[in-house]
């Protein structure tokens, strides 16, 4: 073993720059891989751990006062797998509150913080004793939406403002984010009673916390509870369960984890290419030494081992360091996810992920190195001593200088390209991969931060400039006046209501005529037109394997009807668990349905804020609530813009670092291998500048082709790739803009960065002296 450690150390010492570079690339790959593995492996588990820690009810049902009866508790207790049922009082109101400074539509459920209850306990993340009139504990999620302790939280419902002072942030595993369409607010006894007394009694309900013997049965139990309640409810009601909560609360992290893993794979692939390239180069350079080793009695496998062991050692050491760095990079990632998930993800040292990362990195490099080096076994000692068989094909002289057109430096650069085929192939693949990564980052950022229309269309239901909650939709005069306003382009009622399909509660999006919408969320088939038609969400399609043309049964209250499926729709907010029905269609199962949400689309130059103010002044009584669509969208987008910004910066920094590191290895190899040629060139009169330009220029066509191919593949497949990545969120179609100027900008940027790096790195040509050719 001693002899191999001597060989390994001497090799690393001799090419320390290149080994360090290789190590840095592997370290980045290991760091990102470990982050991805930790997220994929632990994030969902950490949700479950928190769920268990707070003894969260596995199914939570909220029934409003007129519908609730203690009999339901007894009946639910009889359902298989139900361990116990606890109850607590709550106030459920529709309304809006501020998110990052602008109004946001969302139901709030107010609980009595001091009421003793066995299940669904809260975890206090942060609190402060403040003397105030209306104290409230709010979800930890709001601490990322512009709120801090001591701030006032205002919930507006039916033009009435309820203001509370935030005294603490809590983790609530059920109603902790907007993902269930309801955000939990927790008021101390006195505040709760005060609110209860001030609101309409129809808003008071009972929350049943249902604990199961096995939470894996939560979906099945939910189906039985829905069956039990079906047809008996006169008011709104809600049933949520563990599996669904887990899915919606952890999906952002799942996508983030997948992004990390995908990026780690790209860098890992680059590392494999580098190790193969370096080993091939080592074999060429060390051919005679290998001949000597064979001649003195080393076996083929021993020489292979001595060739690849340095790469394995570097891979091992770099992956261990990379794993260490991944824990330094974890806090900002945790913070970004906390903002989405509403609970603190605390991740300690993960032995399994770390071991997996180190083993995977080392084994991949070991295998790729061995496969590249195994040709050494076939090498005869005498052949190796003579310098081996030349790997280049010299039979054809490409770009013969007396026939090729163009400047001598350009022709020489072209000859270099052909002569360095393998290096150029490596560079081509790396430039392609980095171009695609950079375009991905640019596309995400552009479509989230600069021109978010396509992103919004993908993740949300149609958004209008102004959303009004109307007191009486039969008031046709009011509607006519609004439609005739010079600022208004057109109006459309767009409501939603809960229906039950396949024993699960789903959201139905309702409008009279879907063709009037400014865009369709339908990704296959078409929106419903007639009252017996329905378009169903992607989750329903996957769960029940429905096809267009099938029929589906929809229940609301006591009525059940059959509808014809005309299309499939996407909805990130509902994770594909939703349907589209026409106004006449919903009335078949809910004859008392009354439209209340009016979408107003304004003309281009209208100022939304001023228009809303005008509306409120003029029609104060007819309007129960207003939402500035643009502002609320902007505020909801803040978190996505932040994540996209971080992602873009990380990818671009890593892209530049990768290009620099790869070019460092390539330029150094080109100069090292071409030392004699460069010396001859200097001897016959080429200046250092000319040779640096030649070396730099020799990378130009490869980088250019890599950028063009990368750009082409990005342009052709970016949307389908992003759909694949976001499929888990419920995204089925995507029309992200990929502006040509951005594509060209990324390409030109990579080209210039590459050439600048190559020119700077080729500065070491200066050190090569023609005089070195002298041999005594």
């Amino acid at each position: 073993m001693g002899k191999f450690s001597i060989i390994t150390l001497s090799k690393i010492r001799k090419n320390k720059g290149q080994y360090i570079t290789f190590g840095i690339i592997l370290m980045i790959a290991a760091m990102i891989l470990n982050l991805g593995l930790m997220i994929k492996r632990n994030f969902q588990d950490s949700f479950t751990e928190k769920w268990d820690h707070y003894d969260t009810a596995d199914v939570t049902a909220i029934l409003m006062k007129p519908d609730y009866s203690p009999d339901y508790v007894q009946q639910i207790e009889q359902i298989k797998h139900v361990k116990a049922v606890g109850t607590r009082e709550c106030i459920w109101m529709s309304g809006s509150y501020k998110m990052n400074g602008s109004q946001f539509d969302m139901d709030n459920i107010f609980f009595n913080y001091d009421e003793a209850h066995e299940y669904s306990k809260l975890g206090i993340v942060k609190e402060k004793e403040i003397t105030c009139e209306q104290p409230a504990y709010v979800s930890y999620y709001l601490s990322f939406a512009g709120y801090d302790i001591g701030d006032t939280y205002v919930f507006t419902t039916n033009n009435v403002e309820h203001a509370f002072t935030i005294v603490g942030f809590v983790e609530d595993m059920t109603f902790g984010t907007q993902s269930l369409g309801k955000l939990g607010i927790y008021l101390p006894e006195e505040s709760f009673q005060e609110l209860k007394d001030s609101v309409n009694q129809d808003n008071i309900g009972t929350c049943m916390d249902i604990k199961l013997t096995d939470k894996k049965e939560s979906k099945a139990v939910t189906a039985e509870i829905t069956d039990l309640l079906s047809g008996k409810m006169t008011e709104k009601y809600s049933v949520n369960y563990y599996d669904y909560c887990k899915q919606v609360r952890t999906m952002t992290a799942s996508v983030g984890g997948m992004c990390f893993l995908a990026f780690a794979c790209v860098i890992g692939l680059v590392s494999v290419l580098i190790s193969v390239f370096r080993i091939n180069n080592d074999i060429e350079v060390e051919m005679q030494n290998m001949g000597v080793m064979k001649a003195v009695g080393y076996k083929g496998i021993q020489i292979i081992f001595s060739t690849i062991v340095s790469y394995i050692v570097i891979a091992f050491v770099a992956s261990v360091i990379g794993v260490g760095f991944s824990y330094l990079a974890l806090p900002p990632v945790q913070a970004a996810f906390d903002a989405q998930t509403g609970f603190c993800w605390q991740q300690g040292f993960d032995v399994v992920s770390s071991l997996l990362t180190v083993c995977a990195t080392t084994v991949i490099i070991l295998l790729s190195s061995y496969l590249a080096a195994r040709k050494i076994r076939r090498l005869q000692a005498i052949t190796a001593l003579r310098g081996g068989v030349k790997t280049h094909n010299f039979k054809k002289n490409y770009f013969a200088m007396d026939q090729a057109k163009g400047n001598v430096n350009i022709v020489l650069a072209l000859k270099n390209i052909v002569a360095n085929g393998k290096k150029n192939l490596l560079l081509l693949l790396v430039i392609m991969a980095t171009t695609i990564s950079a375009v991905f980052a640019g596309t995400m950022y552009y479509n989230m931060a600069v021109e978010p229309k396509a992103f919004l269309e993908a993740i949300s239901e149609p958004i209008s400039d102004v959303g009004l909650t109307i007191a009486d939709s039969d008031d046709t005069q009011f509607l006519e006046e609004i439609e005739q306003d010079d600022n208004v382009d057109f109006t459309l009622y767009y409501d939603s209501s809960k229906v039950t399909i396949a024993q699960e509660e789903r959201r139905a999006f309702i409008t009279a005529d879907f063709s009037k919408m400014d865009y369709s969320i339908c990704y296959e088939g078409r929106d419903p037109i007639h009252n017996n038609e329905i378009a169903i969400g992607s989750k329903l399609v996957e769960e029940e394997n429905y096809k267009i043309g099938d029929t589906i049964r929809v229940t609301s209250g006591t009525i059940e009807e059959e509808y014809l499926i005309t299309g499939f729709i996407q909805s990130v907010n509902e994770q594909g668990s939703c349907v589209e029905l026409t106004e006449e269609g919903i009335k078949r199962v809910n004859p008392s349905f009354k439209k209340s949400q009016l979408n107003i689309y304004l003309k281009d130059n209208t100022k939304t804020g001023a228009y809303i103010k005008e509306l409120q002044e003029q029609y104060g009584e007819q309007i129960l609530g207003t939402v500035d669509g643009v502002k609320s969208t902007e505020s909801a987008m803040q978190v996505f813009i932040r994540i996209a910004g971080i992602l873009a910066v990380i990818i671009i920094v890593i892209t530049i670092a990768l290009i620099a590191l790869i070019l460092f290895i390539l330029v150094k190899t080109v100069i090292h291998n071409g030392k004699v040629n460069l010396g001859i060139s200097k001897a016959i009169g080429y200046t250092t500048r000319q040779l640096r330009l030649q070396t730099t220029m020799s990378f130009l066509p490869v980088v250019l082709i890599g950028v063009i191919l990368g750009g082409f593949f990005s342009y052709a497949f970016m949307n389908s790739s992003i759909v694949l990545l976001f499929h888990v969120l419920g995204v089925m179609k995507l029309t992200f803009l990929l502006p040509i100027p951005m594509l060209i900008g990324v390409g030109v940027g990579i080209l210039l960065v590459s050439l600048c790096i190559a020119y700077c790195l080729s500065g070491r040509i200066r050190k090569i002296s023609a005089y070195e050719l002298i041999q005594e």
Partner: protein
Amino acid sequence: MKTIIETKKLCKTFSNEGVQQHILRNVDVSIYEGDFTVIMGASGAGKSTLLYALSGMDKPTLGEIHFCGEEISRYSDDKLAVFRRKNCGFIFQQIYMMDKMSLMDNVLASGLLVNKDKKAVATRAQELFKKVNLPEVTYRKFASQISGGEAQRAGIVRGLINKPSVLFADEPTGALNSANSNAVLDVFSSFNQEGQSIVMVTHDLRSALRGNRILYLKDGQIAGECNLDAYTKEDPNRRDKVNEFLKSMGY
């Protein structure tokens, strides 16, 4: 005779881990136009060091080098490169053809540095290849595909493509067999007869006999000089004269 190169108190010192080695010590030497100057000496005497200093390939530690009237010893690396491409041709013992280029491309890579007219340079290269007896089928090949003698003759073509003031040769026959050595030396003699100034370093007596002036280097200084102008190439006394000179130098 016109002096092409003149050195004044030329010194070259190498330093290795604090130990200094004085290779050239106050060398004053002149190289004349049209001469075939041979530099001889024992191993380590500083022959190649002097050759590369004279040709601007390496910079002296001290002293001056006047080449065609220009004082080149303080030129920057790039200025020296430009100077070399116009005034110096080189032939190396190890030949040093660029391995990824055909012989013709090697020659053109040098020629096109000075003359941008590709056609004119290619025509001159073809003429030179013809003179050194290398047919087209050979000069289209790579150096690794031909014999050492052929490669060295191509090296001479490369050295002469820019019509240099002086052709410098560092043991040009050192790596060749007897037949190839003679062929290469014949080419040297032929070009010298046409007026080409040549400075050649050699160990080999047969090669030295091709020159008309022999400088003997000893301990970094010119220890002696032998002029053969009085003897024709066929004169049997020429060899005796050289032998006698070398013997007196302790060779």
